[in-house]
């Protein structure tokens, strides 16, 4: 009995050590640093200041609260667009699934996910350039709209970021929802047809309830991704104009690696982690509840 217990401990020990070194120690060290006034250029002179970094970040400076607000605004807007467009696209691919070349078409559609966000940012930076960009050119020649700085004005810049983010990730949502649609039993469609249900009834009474857990899974994954949003912001707006597109991850990078304020940067990293944990816990709880309900049904 005793040896079995030791054996179990020995089995899980490598995993525990791995987690300790890779995850837990860096996290605890971040928490430790966040309680200090610490700069990378003079780490030997760091001194303890308690919760002051958190207090400044959350209550005295408007930049970080704005970054939190922007992150969630971009996340919710992007994910909403992605779900709507993703569902429409999934429906189309579901309907044409028996047609030749539909697989090839689907592969082409998911190409944006394969691109690195850095490249996506660069491509859109050129597209949205007010003097050289194709978007300005089309608006100017077709609609006579004077070119302006889409990434240089606060509201257009926010919209642009949402559009870029949605453009890249809608195919991901589409794949997920298409997988969900594939799981709907054919009998349900046939029964609905016999009962004379129209497309709207099919969508709201059969398809959406059936794919709800897929939607929630997509939302959880995308939410985590959006909380870490960095590359597109770094390439296109650098958080500007002003702080209109400043997001949490970019703020942390800026504080840590441009100002080298390790204490403040660590505090913002800890806050991001806490926010991520809360959001993920809520989302996973919801997901489980939906799955349980589906199971009951």
């Amino acid at each position, binding site marked *: 009995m005793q040896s079995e217990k030791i054996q179990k401990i020995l089995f899980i020990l490598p995993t525990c050590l791995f987690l300790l070194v890779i995850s837990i120690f860096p996290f605890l060290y971040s928490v430790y640093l966040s309680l200090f006034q610490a700069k990378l*250029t003079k780490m030997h002179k760091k001194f303890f200041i308690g919760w002051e970094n958190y207090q400044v970040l959350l209550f005295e400076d408007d930049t970080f609260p704005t970054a939190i607000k922007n992150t969630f605004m971009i996340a919710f807007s992007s994910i909403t667009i992605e779900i709507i467009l993703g569902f429409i696209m999934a429906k189309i691919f579901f309907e044409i699934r028996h047609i030749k070349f539909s697989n090839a078409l689907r592969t082409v559609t998911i190409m944006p996910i394969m691109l690195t966000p850095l490249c996506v940012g660069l491509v859109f930076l050129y597209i949205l350039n007010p*003097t050289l960009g194709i978007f300005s050119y089309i608006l100017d020649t077709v609609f006579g709209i004077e070119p302006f700085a889409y990434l240089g004005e606060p509201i257009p810049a926010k919209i642009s970021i949402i559009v870029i983010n949605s453009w890249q990730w809608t195919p991901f949502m589409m794949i997920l929802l298409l997988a969900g649609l594939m799981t709907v039993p054919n009998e349900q469609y046939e029964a609905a047809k016999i009962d004379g249900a129209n497309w709207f009834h099919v969508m709201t009474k059969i398809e959406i309830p059936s794919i709800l857990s897929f939607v929630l899974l997509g939302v959880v994954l995308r939410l985590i991704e959006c909380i870490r949003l960095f590359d597109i912001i770094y390439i296109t707006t650098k958080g500007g104009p002003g702080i209109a597109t400043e997001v949490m991850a970019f703020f942390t990078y800026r504080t840590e690696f441009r100002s080298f304020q390790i204490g403040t940067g660590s505090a913002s990293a800890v806050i991001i982690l806490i926010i991520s944990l809360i959001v993920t816990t809520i989302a996973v709880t919801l997901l489980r509840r939906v799955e349980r309900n589906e199971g009951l049904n």
Partner: protein
Amino acid sequence: MLRKILLTFSLLIFPLNSLLAVNWEDELGDHSGYNLKVQSIMDPYIDAVKEISPQFEAVTGASVTVEGFGYDGLHEKQIVACSQNDGSYDVLFVDGIWIGEFVEADCIEPVEDIWTAEGTDQSIVAWDDYISSFAGQAIWDDKKQCLPFGGYWHMLHYRTDLFEAEGLDPPKTFDDVLAAAKLFKDNPKYPDLEGGYAMNMARGSAAGQQFYEWIYSAGGKPWESNYPGSPDAYADQRGLYNSPESVAFIEWMQEMINYMPPGVEQYAWDERAKAFTQGKVAMINNWSVRTPLFNDPEISKVKGKFGVALFPHAAGAESVPPVGGWIACVNKHSKNKEAAWDYLKWFASPEVHREWVLAGAPPSRHSAMNDPQINAEQPWTPVLYESSLRAWQELRPRHALTFELIETLGIEVNKALTGESSAQEAMDTANKKIDRLLKSEGYID
């Protein structure tokens, strides 16, 4: 007349023997087989560095690798590498305003210590030949930390063909600049122009530095004890970013933005220079390092069609041309500091500096500014020289918080320019944030 005075002045203040040829074979050590690595900004002078470095290779046997990076990226890379005691690069080209931070982080070996220990012939260093507004950028804690080599000064660049067509003189005051910008914006006579003027307005360093570049000529000062000629610019650092002069300057920029090209809110150094090179704007203020590009027929549409003038000033104020530029430092963690120092003293010497300038780089020494061949090849040199003598070395803060401070300011300036806040609100916030930053590090009480 002015040129004669300047020439006489310069001949008096730097030793003539600084121009005498140095026997580099005797002066430099043998570094055969060593690959000396130089880390530089990707500014236009980098090609000239690569062009002349083979001369050093021929004398010392070392091979020289020069690698260029963008402005923010270079700063990030250098500080992070320094924190890891990284000696991958032997010579660091550092922006003069970063000096306080680099000294604080113990990244550089002070050149004054090296030349004292080595007993270097001071005619090779020829410190007095440096223009003082720029040479001061290499001094911190009362010690010469690095060798200045790439001094930049701001000049107003304007299109001579357009100004002649309109019968205008080069602008001298802010009002002149505004009137000319207004005239050229959306003028059907000049369909290629997208704006009358272009400035650095992008969030962060670009907009933050723009503020410092203009504030003295706007009749203001960034903090209490920092003004041209101040005996101790850092004595009282309480901010004046929301002074009436500062706010009036931001309001002037807000008006100017109407006469700039679309997208100027995202302009930084390259975009500003490109707009002028491509003939899209009638005027820009620009660092002298990019002036030769405007005369390069391969990339410029304005070759022979532009002139330079002193930096403009507000009514009742004087022109205080901005000064900046790059200093060469020995990496404290370099594996071969002797080779690094040899490269520095060779590269920054008056003799090699002249060759470097003739290869297309900006002149930074009195001797180069008065060199007939340089004046012939870079005809804007007299105005540049006058600008350099009028400049104030403490234009921007040079202490360890400079990068963060400029970025903080740049965010608020950009907010005012994009309409996110009023000029007064933006500058009040900037002042508050900068004061808090300075207090946190003990620069002010």
